[in-house]
């Protein structure tokens, strides 16, 4: 698959503050890539650098093979950006807002009106197209801002905190729209967020950032393996097995540790492939198993573990 974004040792310094400090990553076509980090981690600055509205202090960035600091206009023709605040003209209507941004994006005059109507319909705003944006709810504004970012059908989308400040219902709506964009349209998406469940739901890969640096990068599975190379399994029995049964478990290949007592055991194994053998061994010894739960790590576990390590 084609590489859409390629970043090597990218730096941006503001006075004494290193907002982006030697970032290296790449994003493939059709991928949803998350930049995760607390406020001030450098996520927004990275989006600005990749769109050529800020020049880097060091390193290189290529978007569609172009250097954004030199070919910013050509890069921005192929990108759509959802900014952290909706950044809409509140005194204008939804139609006027989209016509404005559509015209600047170079949509031909004869196609602009239809494109605006189509996208407003897609986002369920067609009934309010002539209403001033100041009369919209937060969720509607965010949907309209997303429509603005997509008006020229860009192959690459930057979403900066897309659900920030939205109520759970509106946030869910926006997340569903984003998920649909990547699944249906195959758009490449760079999602900058500190909303971890959102990132877990939407992203194929993430980079966890702090103070302008990438602490770790990969898929949820990759990061889990990196941080917790061994797996824990929680086993619940119908009846507490005899101590000899649990004792014999310790000598099984791939089993590293067994803790707990009574009808609940916690077993540490080398990897997930060992789990069926553990179950087979226990049932072979006459134990009646009620539940087997390999412990899942969420992006939240990974994130906080990495950020704690950084501290």
């Amino acid at each position, binding site marked *: 698959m084609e590489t859409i974004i390629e970043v090597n040792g990218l730096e941006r310094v503001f006075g004494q503050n290193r907002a982006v400090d030697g970032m290296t990553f790449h994003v493939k076509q059709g991928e949803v890539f998350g930049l995760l980090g607390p406020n001030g981690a450098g996520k927004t600055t990275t989006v600005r650098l990749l769109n050529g509205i800020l020049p880097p202090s060091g390193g290189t960035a290529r978007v569609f093979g172009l250097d954004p600091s030199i070919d910013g206009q050509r890069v921005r023709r192929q990108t759509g950006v959802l*900014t952290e605040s909706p*950044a*809409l003209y509140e*005194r204008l209507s939804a139609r006027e807002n989209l016509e404005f941004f559509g015209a600047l*994006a170079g949509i031909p005059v004869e196609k602009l009106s239809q494109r605006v109507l189509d996208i407003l319909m897609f986002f369920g705003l067609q009934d309010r197209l002539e209403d001033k944006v100041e009369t919209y709810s937060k969720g509607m504004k965010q949907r309209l801002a997303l429509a603005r970012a997509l008006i020229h059908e860009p192959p690459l989308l930057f979403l900066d905190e897309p659900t920030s400040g939205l109520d759970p219902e509106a946030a869910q709506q926006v997340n569903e729209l984003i998920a649909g964009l990547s699944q249906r349209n195959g758009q490449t998406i760079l999602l900058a967020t500190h909303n971890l469940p959102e990132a877990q739901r939407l992203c194929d890969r993430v980079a966890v950032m702090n103070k302008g640096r990438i602490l770790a990068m990969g898929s949820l599975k990759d990061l889990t393996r990196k941080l917790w190379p061994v797996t824990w399994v929680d086993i619940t029995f119908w009846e507490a097995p005899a101590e000899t049964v649990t004792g014999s478990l310790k000598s099984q290949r791939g089993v590293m540790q067994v803790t707990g007592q009574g009808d609940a055991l916690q077993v540490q194994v080398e990897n997930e492939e060992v789990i069926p053998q553990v179950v087979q061994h226990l049932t072979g010894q006459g134990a009646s198993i009620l539940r087997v739960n390999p412990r899942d790590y969420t992006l939240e576990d990974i994130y906080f573990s990495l950020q704690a390590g950084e501290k």
Partner: protein
Amino acid sequence: MNWRSIWTIAKKDLKEVSQNKMAWGPGIVVPLVFAVFMPLVFIILPQMVPVEDVQRELGDLDAMLRAMPPALQALFEGKSLEQMFVLYMAGFMLAPLFLIMPLMFSTVIGSDSFVGERERKTMEALLYTPTSDMELFLGKVLAAVIPAIGLSWITYVVYIIVVNVTSYPLFGRIWFPLPTWWPLMLWMTPALAVLGISATVLISSRVRTFMEAYQMSASLVVLVLALVAGQVSGVLFLGIGTTLIIGTVIWLVDAALIYISVKNFKRSALVAKL
């Protein structure tokens, strides 16, 4: 250079300004005062008060007329007292005051367009569009200059009509505008509109709110007040030659300010202010 983008930005800004009462409020009140209220006072009043009172006024008027360049003094020859008073007030004294308008309009609209956009947090989305820095700059400058000049010219037209209609019983003919007004309207007014916006662009890089930008750029009105003082005291009379020279000086200052503004108008600088 993509002119469609430039016009799109200018049209959007004009639409936005038209929705901002704080921005267009002065655009209605000031022209009304200058073009309707003041001429009514200075033209109708002398026609209603006794001639002796006008005569009393003439003591000062005489001194002022003597301070005028001889070519302008000739305009007053053979005129009645009332005619001289109206000619002097409507034709000369109010002239420099009209120069406040292009300055005021361009600074109000420019402040709303450059700083207001930042204040309303809409600037970032604009910076992410595939426009060049120059297109953004020109779009915003046009959005301020076009209505500033347009509104000033409309005010002049209203003033010309009001002056001629109200003074017709006194003069019996259409006598206004005087030749001295043409360079004022066509040369100095656009120069001041551009001065207002170029100063606003520079100021906008140093302030954060619309009001700050407006107050700072509005201080340029001092320039116009100096011209008013010059006219009243007879030190600097706005004849054709003087107006052309002052206008040229302002255009040169405009050119310098625009050059500096264009050099400073960078996306990266605007982003840093967000």
